[in-house]
């Protein structure tokens, strides 16, 4: 079984600054994806960024980037130039897949980190 741990229940950042959210995971699987999901106050979860575990290159999506350390089983999210709209709960999540890359769909989530961006 997999576990995902987010050790920061709450974080805050000033607008335009950079913030890093931490995530660690534990698994015996070799093939998996890691995700960061954003859950704004309206409560619909939205995918922010995805990392394939077999790729060494860290994923980047505009202002969002990850620091993926496979050996350490660490997957942090960096938000640059924070905006007020980034205020949300952020979930780190794990999904295993087969050797061909097809996933089984089940996500294992961390506890979440509430991020507040202050003007």
């Amino acid at each position, binding site marked *: 079984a997999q576990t995902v741990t987010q050790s920061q229940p709450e974080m805050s950042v000033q607008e335009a600054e950079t913030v890093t959210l931490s995530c660690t995971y534990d698994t015996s699987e070799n093939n998996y994806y890691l995700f960061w999901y954003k859950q704004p106050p309206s409560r619909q*979860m939205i995918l922010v960024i995805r990392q394939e575990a077999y790729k060494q290159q860290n994923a980047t999506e505009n202002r969002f980037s990850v620091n993926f350390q496979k050996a350490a089983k660490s997957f942090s999210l960096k938000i640059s130039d924070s905006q007020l709209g980034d205020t949300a709960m952020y979930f780190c999540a794990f999904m295993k897949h087969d050797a061909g890359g097809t*996933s089984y769909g089940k996500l294992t989530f961390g*506890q979440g980190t509430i991020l507040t961006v202050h003007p």
Partner: protein
Amino acid sequence: EPEVTQTPSHQVTQMGQEVILRCVPISNHLYFYWYRQILGQKVEFLVSFYNNEISEKSEIFDDQFSVERPDGSNFTLKIRSTKLEDSAMYFCASSDEGMNTEAFFGQGTRLTVV
């Protein structure tokens, strides 16, 4: 942009009553899921559904729970006899088949058992 929709947004029910939570997944998706989030806790997987049958379920998904895709568009979660501890936000999700599959989530149904 296609999205997953859930109804109702909030449901209040008496303990022991049956509830049905409804979801309309994205139309060309093949995998369907239910997750729940008890207030202040992490999002937990309940069940996945593919090809008209359950493909995986968690230990939470006991005999009180069932899922159905009654008409090719809706995907429902039924709780037969609700308990106070079933109070939670329930999220439906759907995904396509294949590589790099992304799960799309609905906005959730808040179930309150009184």
